[in-house]
C-alpha cells in the first residue's frame, strides 16, 4: 500500500499528542523539556513529508530552523533550571507556585 502524505500527517499528530501528554503530565522540569522536544520533532516529520510530496524545499527549511530553535531553547531552558536548582536543590514544578490567584 502506498504511503501518502496523510500517513505522515497522522503520525506527526500522534507524536504531537504524545508530546502534549508529556507536557501536561511531567512535573520534573527536565523531563518536561523532553516533551517539548517531542512536540517540535513531530512537526519536523510532517514538514519533511510535505516537502517531499510537494517537491518543495521550504518544508525542509522550516524543519531546519525548528531544529535550531529547539537547540537554543534547550540552552536557555537549562540555564534557567540551573539557576533554580542552585537555589532550591529541586526542579519539581509543584514547588514552583508562590504566585497564584
Amino acid at each position, binding site marked *: 500500500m502506498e504511503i501518502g502524505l496523510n500517513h505522515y500527517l497522522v503520525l506527526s499528530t500522534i507524536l504531537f499528542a504524545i508530546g502534549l501528554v508529556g507536557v501536561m503530565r511531567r512535573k520534573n522540569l527536565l523531563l518536561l523539556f523532553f516533551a517539548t522536544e517531542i512536540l517540535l520533532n513531530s512537526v519536523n516529520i510532517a514538514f519533511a513529508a510535505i516537502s517531499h510530496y510537494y517537491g518543495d524545499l521550504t518544508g525542509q527549511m*522550516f524543519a531546519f530552523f525548528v531544529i535550531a530553535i529547539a537547540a537554543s531553547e534547550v540552552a536557555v531552558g537549562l540555564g534557567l533550571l540551573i539557576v533554580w536548582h542552585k537555589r532550591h536543590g529541586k526542579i519539581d514544578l509543584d514547588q*514552583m507556585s508562590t504566585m*497564584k490567584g
Partner: protein
Amino acid sequence: MLEPVNVSMESLNLMTLAPMLIPIIGALLIIVIDIIKGGLDKTLYVGLSLLFLLMDFGSLLEASGVFAQSGTVMGVFDVMLIDGLAILSQFIIVGASMLFIPLALTHNRFHEFSYPEFFALFLFMISGFQFMVATDNLILIFVGLETASLALYTLIAMHNRDKSFEAAVKYFTMGALAAGFYSFGSMVFYALTGSVEINQMATVLAANNYADIGYVLVGVVFMLASFGFKLSLVPFHTWAPDVYEGASAAMAGFMSIVPKIAAFIVVMRLFEFLIHSGVVWLEIILYIFVIVTMTAANIWALVQTDVKRMLAYSSVSHAGFVMAAILIGTTQANSALFLYWALFTFTNLGSFSMLWISRQKHLPAHQASDHSYDKFAGMIQTAPIAAVIMALFMLSLAGIPPFALFWGKLYMISSAVTGGYTVLALIMALNSAIAGYYYLKLIIYMFMKEPVVGNDGHVYVANSTLALKSIIGFAAVGTIFALVAVNPLLEFITSFVYNSGY
C-alpha cells in the same frame, strides 16, 4: 549542478534591514565593550542603548518616508516586508523600548542592570521583534519570535530572585509549548498551500476556494493557541499575571506592550485575510475570544490584592479589547489598534513605572507583596504629586476622558459600531465599566484611606532618580495631552494602514 545565482544588490533592498540591524550592531558593540573593559557603569550602557534605539527610530522615520512615497517595499529575496503595519508597529516597539531603557537607572541597585549583557540581550530582543513584524514569512516570524522570547525569558530571570525565576520558567515552558503549536500550525498551512508566506497562502487558499476548510481550521486553531499565548488571550493567559508579578515592574510594563504589538501584527497579517474570505468559524471564535478575554480578565482583576497583578490582568483585558480590532477587520479597526496601542504604551508604561519607582528592596511586615494595595493607602497625604500622577494613569486606563486611553477606546468602539458589531460595542463599553472598579480601587486606597503608621511617603519614591522621574513625567504629559496628539496620530496611522491594504 545548480546554476549560479545572480543577485543584484539593488533588488535586495538592503535598506529594509537597517532598522533591525541597528540594535544588533548596538548589542554586539556592548558585548565588545564589555570584553575590552569590564565593570563599566550601567549609565554607559543605558546611554548606548538609547543611542542605538534613537538611530533605530531615525531609520524608521526614513523607512516611513519611503513608504509614504513608494508604498510597500519588499527586500532581501522578498523575505522582508516593510509595509505600513511593519513601520507603525516598529515605531511602537522602538518607542516603548526607549521609554523603558532609562528605567534601568534606579536609585537602588537591581541585579539585572549590573550586566552589560542585559542591554545586549535587550537590543537583540528588539531586533527580534522587529524582524517578526517586518515579514510575512512564517519562518522568519518564528525565528524572530524565538530570538525575542529567549532574550525576554533571560531578562526576566536576571532580576534574580525566586519569583523572577519562577516567572521565567513558567513563561519559558509555556512559550515552548506555544512554539510547538506555532510550528504545528505553520505545518498545516504549509501542507495546505505549499508556502509559508502569508500572502501566497492567501492566494492559494482563495484559488482553492477554501475547499479544505477542516485543514484551514486546524491550522487556525494552532495559530490561535500560539498567539493566544503571546497575546495572553483567555485561557492561554495564565502565564501573564505570574510573569508580571515575578518580573520587575519595569519589565512587566515593557512586556505588556512590545511583545503584544508584535504578536498583533502577525495575527493581523494572518487572520485578516481569513476573516475577509468569510471563514465564519474564525469570526465566531475570535468573537468568543474577545469577549471572554475582556470579561474574564476584568473579573479576575477585580479580586486581586496586588496592584501589579491587577495591572497584569488589566493588560490581559486590554489585549482582549484590542483583539476586537482583528475581529472587526476594517481599516478603521486596524487603525484603532495602533492608536490604542500607542496611547496604551504611554499609560501602561507610566503606571508600571510608578510601581517601579516605589519598589522596595525589603518588604515591611504589613505588606504582603511588592505592590499590595495597602502600600498605597493614604498616598495623597504623604506623596501628593505621585498620587495624582498614579491616579491619572489609572483614570486613563479606565478610559475616563480626556486622558490618553479614552481616545483609543473611543475609536475602537466606534470601529465596532461602524463594522456592524453592535453587541460587541456594548460589551466593550460595559467591560470598561467593570474595569473601572479595580482602577478605582487603587485610587480609593491612595486618596481615601489613611496611611499606614510610619509611612512617610518615602517609599513611593524609593527608587526615584531623574531618569525615572522624567520617564514618568513624559508618560504623564503624554497621557494628559494625548488629546492634542490624537489627530495627527490618527491621520498618520490611518494613511499607513490604509496604504498597506488592511
